[in-house]
């Protein structure tokens, strides 16, 4: 029996992101902006410092990783806390910042929020941070 091709699209738009922890909060960056990931080194800038957040007390058991971010000024090594994972976000779950939050949030690299079952993930674009911070 010949199967008819499906008339409905199965395409589900997604965005690939690399998620990590900084100052105890879950953040994510577009996977396309991450060139590499490797073990933590001292020359990498802590994500908390870039984001202007207090450096949370992190237990030694938490893995520290370095993400190499593509940046206008060249590669930017950023030290983040784990778990670091590659995941897919449904575009339906991605939201621009609400107006008042966009106006008052001090982290100018926040681009969007993702609402999932386990809470909110903050989508960051390190290229939007102030040049002097980066």
């Amino acid at each position, binding site marked *: 029996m010949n199967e008819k091709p499906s008339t409905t699209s199965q395409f589900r738009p997604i965005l690939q992101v690399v998620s990590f922890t900084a100052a105890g909060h879950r953040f994510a960056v577009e996977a396309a902006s991450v060139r590499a990931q490797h073990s933590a080194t001292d020359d990498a800038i802590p994500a908390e410092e870039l984001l202007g957040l207090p450096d949370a007390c992190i237990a030694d058991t938490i893995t520290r990783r370095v993400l190499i971010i593509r940046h206008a000024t060249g590669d930017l090594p950023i030290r983040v806390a784990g778990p670091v994972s590659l995941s897919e976000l449904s575009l*339906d779950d991605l939201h621009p910042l*609400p*107006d*008042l939050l966009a*106006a008052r*949030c001090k982290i100018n690299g*926040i681009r969007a*929020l993702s609402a999932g079952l386990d809470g*909110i993930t903050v989508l960051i674009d390190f290229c939007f941070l102030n040049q002097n911070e980066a």
Partner: protein
Amino acid sequence: MSETTLDQVLARRHEAHQNIIDVDEPTTKLVIFALGNKWFAFHGERIREILAHADVFFVPGCPSSLEGVINVRGDIASVIRLHELLHLPESDAASSSILLGYGGGISSGIRVDRIVDVIDVPQNSIQPPPATLPDHMRALVLGVLRFQEQPVSLLDLDQMFADYARGLG
């Protein structure tokens, strides 16, 4: 005995009906709420929804008056506290609610300690703001009224959101 015809009765009735003056006063819907021991109100058309329970997710980098965001059936809305903007002491009311408000092209949740009532009031029961109003309230209060023997300040949500976005509160 004078005879009255049906036509005359109906004519009188018609005349009397025409003389009735509509004394219904225009009314406006208000959402009255409490912040601490003070009562405030927003115009009802500015409030889209009242949420009794909602999980608020903290977003880093925001002032303490911006509590976080809520997920309202798949949409994300900010939640702000008005205490600082209105110069009121912080309260930790256990039964607080969130009003989903819209004003000046901005929408946001607003944390209130308690919903008092949603009522229709005659527009003329709203008096102009008194001259004794503190400076920080002058631009935010559209008028005042009394409800259940309590003074209620009717707040301008457009102005409030605009001021908040400008960094006040």
